[in-house]
């Protein structure tokens, strides 16, 4: 790899710049009459160590925001700085390198490779990071242990329950020690008992490892586990503040 000035290698001192800084971000789909503003001037700043829940009705722009924060998509206008780097002008490959080095994803639909064992799924991001096979296996096993899946390393997704599959996905997301973990409706396909267990796992990862977590959800019960809640409406941030603790909801502090 001749790194050169690729985004992945353009390291910015953490602490100075905010981890994520969106200002006036617009995302427009379609042209002319049929133009749709998925984001219409969104401002958002996320710092290291936060656990942010993003909420809002469907069509409010929360998923689009998530894709932009996750460097899967780029804003039509406005500025998105990730660790101080302007993402809007990066090439596809530079975006890929950003994702490779700093981001971890967890999806509603788990998105594991079918007919592939848990440990091989977890190893996948390390393959693209050129980690040697032995080290890869060691890190993957450690990540699986961290999400409580010892003894299931050789199971394929079909042999695991939904909650276990999502844990494998989380292990895959954290195996690279990312700056930020993006979770898109991570409990959407899980029953409530498994959802609670999963949220507790995320809270633990946030607290013990200091992994920044941004989670899109429409369930207030799940959002209650976060430390900050951002609500989107009509492509803009409608409210942003510390998560209110409702009685009986969530976890013991």
């Amino acid at each position, binding site marked *: 790899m001749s790194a050169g000035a690729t985004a992945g290698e353009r390291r910015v001192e953490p602490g100075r710049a905010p981890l994520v800084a969106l200002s006036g971000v617009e995302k427009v789909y379609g042209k002319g009459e049929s133009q749709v503003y998925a984001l219409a001037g969104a401002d958002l700043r996320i710092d290291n160590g936060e656990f942010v829940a993003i909420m809002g009705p469907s069509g409010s722009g929360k998923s689009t925001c998530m894709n932009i924060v996750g460097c899967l*998509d780029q804003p039509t206008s406005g500025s998105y700085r990730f660790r101080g780097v302007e993402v809007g002008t990066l090439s596809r490959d530079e975006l890929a390198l950003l*994702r490779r080095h700093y981001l971890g994803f967890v999806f509603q639909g788990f*998105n*594991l490779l079918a007919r592939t064992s848990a440990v091989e799924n977890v190893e996948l991001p390390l393959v693209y990071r050129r980690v040697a096979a032995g080290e890869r296996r060691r890190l993957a096993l450690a990540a699986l242990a961290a999400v409580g899946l010892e003894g299931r390393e050789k199971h394929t997704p079909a042999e695991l329950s939904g909650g276990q599959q999502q844990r494998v996905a989380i292990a895959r997301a954290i195996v690279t020690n990312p700056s930020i973990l993006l979770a898109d409706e991570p409990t959407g396909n899980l029953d409530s008992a498994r959802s609670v267990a999963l949220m507790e796992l995320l809270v633990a990862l946030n607290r013990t490892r200091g992994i920044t977590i941004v989670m899109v959800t429409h369930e207030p019960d799940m959002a209650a586990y976060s430390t900050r809640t951002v609500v989107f409406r009509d492509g803009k941030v409608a409210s942003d503040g510390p998560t209110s603790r409702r009685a009986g909801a969530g976890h013991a502090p």
Partner: protein
Amino acid sequence: MLWTTLVMAFREIRRNALRSFLTTLGIVIGVGAVIAMVTLGQGATIKVTGDVAKMGNNLLTVSPGSERRGAVSVAATMFTLDDANAIRRDVSSVRFVAPTASRATSMVYANRNYTATVTGSINAYLDVRGYALDRGRIFSETEQRVGMPVCVLGETVRKELFGAEEALDATIRVGKLACRVVGVFASKGQSTFGFDQDDFVLMPLATFQRRIAGTTDVGAIFVSARDEGSTVKAKRQIEALMRERRRIALGAAPDFAVRDMKEISDTLATITRALTALLGAVAAVSLLVGGIGIMNIMLVSVTERTREIGIRMAIGARAHEVLLQFVVEAIVLSVLGGLLGMGLGLAGSFAVARLVGLPFVLMPEVVLLAFAFSAAVGIAFGIFPARKASRLNPIEALRHE
């Protein structure tokens, strides 16, 4: 990275073992067919040239032609022993001369009856035509001069008349002539033209002329030139000599023909080579079709695995890494097919060569070429689906059902 990609490709292929096998079948058959066709074709060429050489590469056949008189063609005058002697005496570039006369005759031994060609000639016949004795002896001077009733049997005739019995020193009846068997030829097998070269009986020319034919005609004169290089010269000299002896006017068409085995062997080699090229080309087309089969399945695979591609991209795979993955998969598929086809083609052509009695000629350059071509097919037909995969939008790919 390449190694890991290779490992991933193998894993993917194993995961879909049956489909991978069916996909690669086109390449297997293509490579197998190319190798089998070219190998067998080469064997046939070598067999043909070898057979003609066995007949004697420097063999010339002098035979009377037919003359046109108005609407009817009349057989030209036969040669005589004197013509043969003249060739031996006057043509410098000639080594052996064997005047022959032959006729299909029925022959009897005990209660067995068989009809074969009886050829009268002199001992030089063996040298000219490349026959060797299996056992017994050839004719003595006296036998040839006096025309004694002795004969040497071709292997086919011996088998027909004697079966497991001993033929040497037995007496058979050839036509009306009681004839002692003094030798048996070693088998030469089928000729290139498909006739049995062991299906004849040889006796001294004098015996044949006096006791079988009742004429002094010589049907054909076989001549072997001193070496391969002198056949053209010998041919020209014999033509000149025979025109003179048969008093053919300058510029008139001769009533005889001098044929050259070298010519025939070259023609045959050219034909078999052309046939080999043709069959090889047809087989190469099937290789191309096999490549299209791989492209088809790779395209299906890209669609099927859209979500997987999305996951890989989300995790940080760059476009060229996705491209590499799919191209490597296509190459591994077609190379596996190529290896399988290579084995199949070689084994198949070996078996067929054994079965039909052709020499098995291993041609490493053709095997390598077919194999390299199969790998090239993998690249050529893998690149389009792979590009398609690498250009997917990660968000849409992730949403793909």
